[in-house]
């Protein structure tokens, strides 16, 4: 078994601020994902990384940067937080593209 850890659990930011979310996995999986979860909009892919040092944009990448520092970690940066923004950011990992994705508990973002 393994686990995905996301930090912080809650993140409160100010408009225009750069905010960084972190994800760690100990499954030894090659592929990692960042999703944004909004009520009524499902899970939307922001960035994914097929292997260490790889970065691929998803459908919602504008306004975000990502970094795959090493195989076990994948960070997401909100480049300029939008006022009144509220969402949950989920990190996931899988062995390969068509395998089960294992999700972390999420980071809840609120921008004042």
């Amino acid at each position, binding site marked *: 078994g393994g686990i*995905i850890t996301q930090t912080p659990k809650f993140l409160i930011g100010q408009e225009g601020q750069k905010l960084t979310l972190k994800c760690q996995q100990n499954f030894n999986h090659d*592929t990692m*994902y960042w*999703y944004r979860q909004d009520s*009524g*909009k*499902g*899970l*939307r*892919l922001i960035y*994914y990384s*097929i292997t260490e040092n790889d970065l*691929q944009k*998803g459908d919602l990448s504008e306004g975000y940067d990502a970094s795959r520092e090493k195989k076990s970690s994948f960070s997401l940066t909100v480049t300029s937080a939008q006022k009144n923004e509220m969402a949950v950011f*989920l990190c996931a990992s899988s062995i*390969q*593209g*068509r395998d*089960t*994705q*294992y*999700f*972390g*508990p*999420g980071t809840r973002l609120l921008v004042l």
Partner: protein
Amino acid sequence: GDSVTQTEGLVTLTEGLPVMLNCTYQSTYSPFLFWYVQHLNEAPKLLLKSFTDNKRPEHQGFHATLHKSSSSFHLQKSSAQLSDSALYYCALSGDTNAYKVIFGKGTHLHVLP
């Protein structure tokens, strides 16, 4: 491009009645389909995944059949339980890019006693 459409919003039914959550998809080739379930305050987790050999996946009483003719992968259970109340996502991994998994908007299932 690839897309997934599922029963949107809230589905409410009484315990013991059958469950059917719809999922249809658009994909150029032969995709893999998934159902993920997310209980309140928990992370999403895999419920079912389609097979390549037309077998019907089953888990915790749920099953789904991939029908390529109608591009569907509906989730079914013969008798709902209170513990089935959760958010259900249908997802697709296309042939052109297996890593880019497309999720539907999710269906809330609320089972009443």
